[in-house]
């Protein structure tokens, strides 16, 4: 439901970032993996930031059967 909206995208990225942080905080990772996770986290955070910075309200208007007379 509303999977392709900016908010849904943001939430997916944010959740992924949370998972990355959780895994890093669990803290029993090989160095290479924690480096990899960190890079991934930095990219996810940047993607979230980008979404917030560039967001513009998307407006769509529906046609309703008993709507107003078109004038």
């Amino acid at each position: 439901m509303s999977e392709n909206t900016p908010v849904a995208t943001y939430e997916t990225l944010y959740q992924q970032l949370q998972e990355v942080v959780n895994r890093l905080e669990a803290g029993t990772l090989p160095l290479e993996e924690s480096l990899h996770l960190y890079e991934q986290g930095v990219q996810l955070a940047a993607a979230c930031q980008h979404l917030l910075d560039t967001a513009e309200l998307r407006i769509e208007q529906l046609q309703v059967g008993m709507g107003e007379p078109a004038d």
Partner: protein
Amino acid sequence: MYILTVTEMNTYLRELLDAEPVLSDVWVEGEISNFKRHTSGHCYFSLKEGDAVLNAVMWKSYALRLGDLPRNGDAVLAHGRVSFYEVGGKLQLYVDTLRAAGVGFLHAQFEELKQRLDTEGLFDLSRKRALPLLPRRVGIVTSGKGAALQDMLTVLARRCPLVEVLISPCLVQGEQAPGSIVAALHTLYATDVDLIIVARGGGSLEDLWAFNAEEVARTIFASSIPVITGIGHETDTTIADYVADLRAPTPSAAAELAVPEQAELRLSLAALRQQLNTAFAINIDTRRRELAAAHDRLRHYNPAIRLPHARQQVDDLLRRAEAQLQYGLTLRQTQLQGLQAQLSALSPQATLERGYAVVRQATNGTVVTQSTQVGSGETLVITLRSGKLVADVVELQAEESA
């Protein structure tokens, strides 16, 4: 059959009317006529409908609450009690509230519907749903042309441009408005919006009337999606407001309540970003400490460091071996001395010391132990404790038999 005085009759009529509950709390709709405001401030008038006339009086204390004094010909809705005025012999409506009939009637309708739906449970707080913290798509039911829509879009764009908006336009006033609002709601119910705003800009009570329609209330009640209302101004409350999950005082306020400030998202993102850095730093630090610990262990096993230790072990062993050897030597020396002592005890020297002598044949050194070994005249060497004698055998004597 009774015979009554006029006073008794009028008193009886008054008491009869006063005991009737319907007459003590009643709305009467009619047209104002013969309106007179006495210098005392009390107002006297009649309510008329065709040929039917009802006398009415409104005491000063109630009349002062009226904004504008009614004029003859105004259609009104008057509230009060009906009683019998004994002095004038008149039946009168004692008015405490006077409303223009249109509005007053609507108000009475409103109260009736509100009461009924409330009893049915349409306004129960227990069924008010929480709004999504961050809606993905917000549906808006309002006029496509009103300033209210623009106000809401401005608020949404300012607060949280990340959300999507789906506008479901409808009529917001007039006879067709309730049906139009219901249709617009149903259109949104078929979409994937996760929050609906039902809004209308300010207007008169009649202008907002569509939002008091029962069908609108029931359609909102049936929604599976949370609904916020923002209808009219602060002071206006419609039936739709009572049914909605959340009532906002105005359309703009509804938009404010619909979405969080994007700044809040920025804050939580910044916090999570910081958490990422900290978690990574801790990870690296842990690895660093593990490395240091491993390095320490490695040093422990380093032969360069272990060699002096081994050397010391060898030295220790050597020292122990030496000591062992020394001990063995000392032991043997002691044993030797013992043996020497034993030996010297057994040597002929000791015998010689005691005065004995050893006799050997001069020719071959054979020790002479019996006389038959030697011949007469043979040379013998006699060893004494000190010095030797060389002697010739003068006579042989055989061993005396015992």
